């Protein structure tokens, strides 16, 4: 995708924020003992409040209750999801992602609140709204976007019984994760790779720790004020070992660059451009140029850096074309 195509795509998906997925819908099944028992059975849940009528009636629950974690189950579409899912707004949004190469889908977070125990006979109505769409992120599974929906649940008296916030990642699967070779071993695959970890020693740990906090610092001699990078214990100008640091604005220009083609390293996103950037403050830093095609990079190009999470374990400064 070119930066222009990406912007058009992102504008298109962001237009979905705030839209309701569908009108409030009553669950296909009201809360019932059979579905509760089936769920408790497969979960190995022996809680007598869910399945033992005699016990439940005598307990403070006063009768059978549904496991609170079933709240969303009462609103599920069921078997049509497998072959002919309903074409609601959320599906339509997912289709837009699919068409742009973000075909993978993975739930990443939920946050549920249960306002009261549900009992057999209760109706559950669900109302879902698309609440947020993130910026593009590089994740362990691949590059993609997080979509957050909020569902409010009400009962037959229109009273709120719970709320669930649900976050999914729509992503382009990494080639390195594509284990379609049919490996049937019980051990699964090796761990999905991340970038090589930064080496953190006595003299540079502080610098990487700041990157983890989202900042790029430049070491400064306390005696003669000369800036230096990468971090080292002594000033090359005046040999002082007293130093402090300033934060870079990450405005810079490309001093030199190369594109890495082969061999491909597991855990890195390709195309991969490595560059030496001259920062406005005067020091140079080695980093990646992202957000444009490799053929559009040139020496002297103005760039703007941003500290980003590039995989599950790694924060790094990344430089974009400065427009």
């Amino acid at each position, binding site marked *: 995708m070119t930066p222009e195509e990406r912007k058009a795509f992102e504008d298109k998906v962001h237009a979905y924020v705030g839209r309701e997925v569908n009108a409030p819908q009553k669950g296909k099944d009201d809360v019932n003992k059979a579905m509760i028992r089936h769920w408790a059975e497969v979960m190995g849940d022996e*809680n007598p409040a869910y399945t033992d009528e005699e016990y439940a009636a005598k307990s403070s629950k006063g009768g059978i209750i549904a496991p609170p974690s079933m709240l969303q189950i009462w609103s599920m579409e069921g078997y049509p999801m497998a072959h002919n899912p309903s074409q609601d707004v959320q599906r339509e949004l997912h289709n837009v992602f699919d068409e742009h190469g973000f075909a993978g889908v993975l739930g*990443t977070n939920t*946050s549920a609140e249960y306002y009261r125990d549900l009992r057999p006979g209760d109706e559950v109505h669900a109302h879902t709204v698309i609440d947020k769409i993130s910026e593009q992120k590089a994740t362990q599974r691949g590059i993609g976007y997080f979509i957050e929906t909020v569902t409010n649940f009400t009962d037959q008296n229109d009273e709120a019984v719970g709320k669930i916030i649900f976050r999914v990642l729509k992503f382009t699967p990494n080639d390195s994760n594509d284990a379609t070779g049919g490996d049937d071993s019980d051990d699964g695959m090796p761990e999905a790779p991340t970038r090589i970890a930064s080496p953190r020693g006595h003299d540079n740990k502080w610098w990487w720790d700041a990157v983890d906090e989202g900042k790029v610092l430049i070491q400064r001699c306390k005696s003669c004020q000369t800036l230096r990078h990468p971090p080292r214990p002594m000033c090359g100008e005046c040999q002082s070992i007293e130093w402090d640091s300033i934060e870079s604005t990450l405005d810079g220009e490309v001093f030199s660059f190369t594109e890495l083609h082969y061999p491909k390293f597991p855990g890195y996103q390709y195309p991969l451009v490595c560059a030496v950037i001259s920062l406005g403050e005067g020091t140079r830093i080695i980093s990646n140029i992202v957000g444009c095609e490799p053929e559009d990079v040139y020496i002297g190009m103005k760039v703007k850096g941003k500290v980003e999470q590039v995989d599950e374990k790694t924060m790094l400064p990344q430089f974009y074309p400065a427009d």
Partner: protein
Amino acid sequence: MNKETLQYQDVAVGDKLPPLEIDISSSLIIGAAIASRDFTPVHHDKKAAQECGLPDVFMNILTSNGFMGRFVTDWAGPESTVKGIDIKLGAPNLPGFVMTVTGEVTAKNDDTGVVEVGVMGENNVWGMHMGGSVRIELPKSDQQGEV
């Protein structure tokens, strides 16, 4: 599970819950997906899971969420009330993995009687599968302890 429900005052921040070990099989993944009415193909169709970049069917969130709840009610007892579950998913759970769930009491709210339990589920192959917290209301005994 513990059939004697814990009283709010008997629980302290830092208390550890008995660990729960779950053998993950295709039957569990598929059975729980279907019992949760989640027919998304990646949870019952190996080919669909592979097209998504994983070697086999993987556990759906409703099941992970269910285990978060079960783990805490197993400890708290049947007269406790689950008020909320926050869960962050990490590496998927696949057939053949074993997930060990651990947890500890992280906070108590004397006004509401709600106890917060931090929960972590790690599988033996890829590590962290789920982490988060469960908020559970425990009964308070009527008798106020007098010192």
